[in-house]
């Protein structure tokens, strides 16, 4: 909180000279920028009432708005593939994992038209108010995710809208015989460090399109093992995968109150989504 205030004060100072210049040209009352001067909690509330894409797009309004969107309480990255390819966080994932298991998939992406990947300033900002994160992309990597969780100390709810379909993407990007033997590029190890939100805030985790592959099982295992105050883990599974569920129930849980809930996945053709 102190950080936000410091940052707001700092940005405040930065804009004063510009505003002064403008006031010579026009009546001060007419040009008063009230929205940029709202307290951080109100800016957070307003931007949280916007879809994630619109909230992020406000970064172009002025230099003060560049980081305002990071004050939101919820983010929903629902853009499946294409738009994620251009986000700095996607680049971040690339840079962070240049020598790790993800590099090959990103080589592929680069071949498909990605430029300037390494030149991007890919530092993830802190999301001080973020309580809800919805990921609509199935290929979110551990590197990216653990960094993101590290930057979201208040996170209470994490939803994988498309599950964690590492195999799906592997099949798509790799040709037959491309990954042989022990070389399984997409099955990364979960990080050893545990982000602070897992220790104290994360209460809900959901996999809407749970396929039960190794990557997903590792992900669930990690959260059950490390999320100390987890209240509910919800998994929407296809009927034929119910056998996976018995294995999941055996996994160790650090939260004594955690309930694992299985839902038979149904597709809603009206909304185009599961549940």
């Amino acid at each position: 909180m102190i950080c936000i205030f410091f940052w707001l004060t700092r940005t405040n100072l930065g804009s004063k000279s510009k505003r002064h210049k403008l006031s010579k040209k026009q009546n001060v009352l007419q040009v008063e920028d009230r929205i940029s001067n709202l307290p951080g909690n109100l800016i957070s509330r307003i931007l949280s009432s916007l879809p994630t894409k619109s909230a992020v797009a406000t970064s172009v309004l002025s230099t003060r708005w560049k980081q305002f969107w990071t004050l939101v309480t919820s983010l929903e990255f629902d853009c499946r593939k294409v738009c994620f390819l251009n986000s700095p966080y996607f680049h971040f994932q690339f840079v962070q994992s240049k020598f790790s298991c993800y590099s090959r998939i990103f080589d592929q992406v680069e071949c498909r038209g990605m430029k300037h990947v390494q030149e991007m300033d890919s530092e993830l900002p802190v999301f001080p108010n973020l309580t809800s994160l919805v990921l609509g992309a199935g290929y979110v990597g551990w590197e990216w995710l653990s960094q993101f969780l590290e930057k979201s100390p208040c996170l209470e709810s994490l939803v994988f809208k498309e599950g964690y379909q590492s195999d799906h993407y592997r099949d798509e990007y790799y040709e037959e015989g491309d990954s042989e033997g022990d070389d399984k590029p997409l099955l990364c190890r979960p990080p050893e460090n545990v982000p602070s939100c897992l220790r104290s805030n994360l209460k809900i985790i959901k996999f809407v399109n749970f396929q039960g592959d190794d990557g997903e099982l590792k992900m669930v295992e990690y959260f059950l093992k490390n999320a100390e105050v987890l209240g509910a883990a919800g998994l929407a599974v296809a009927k034929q995968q119910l056998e996976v569920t018995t294995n999941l129930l055996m996994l160790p849980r650090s939260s004594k109150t955690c309930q694992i809930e299985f839902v038979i996945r149904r597709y809603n053709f009206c909304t185009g989504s599961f549940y």
Partner: protein
Amino acid sequence: MASSIENNNEKLTLKSSDGEEFLVEKHVALQSTLLQNMLDSDCSSADVIPLPKIDARTLALVLGYCKKHADASSSKQGELNSFDSEFLKDMDMGALFNLVLAANFMEIKGLLDIAAQKIADTIKDKPHQEVREIFHVENDYTPEEEAAVREENRWAFEGFP
């Protein structure tokens, strides 16, 4: 039951920043968490509660909202919803900002929600230049900086005017 009716009839006086006094029924004032906390902790023994950040015009609007919500029974949710959408309908931006700040200060969650949503709706789906003009936000990016911001989050600007 009798005592709660008696309590409901209690009144308190709020004073706006420009010195106007408003006599408010207690159950109406309780829509504000700030006033509720003051009443609970007995800070309200003073005859008049000053609200130095809220002018009379704004306070009248706020209390109108609180009265409607305090008097309506829970079965009239539909009526309240239409009241809420009418409440902010033709409000100018200056009044809306006064209102959102007052709701924030007095901690009136419902009013805060609809006022913030109204501001968000004004931003949503509009070209950025239009948003800047509506809110008098000065674009202090250099063209190069603005291009870099757009590039950094290119996905967010796809399909934007």
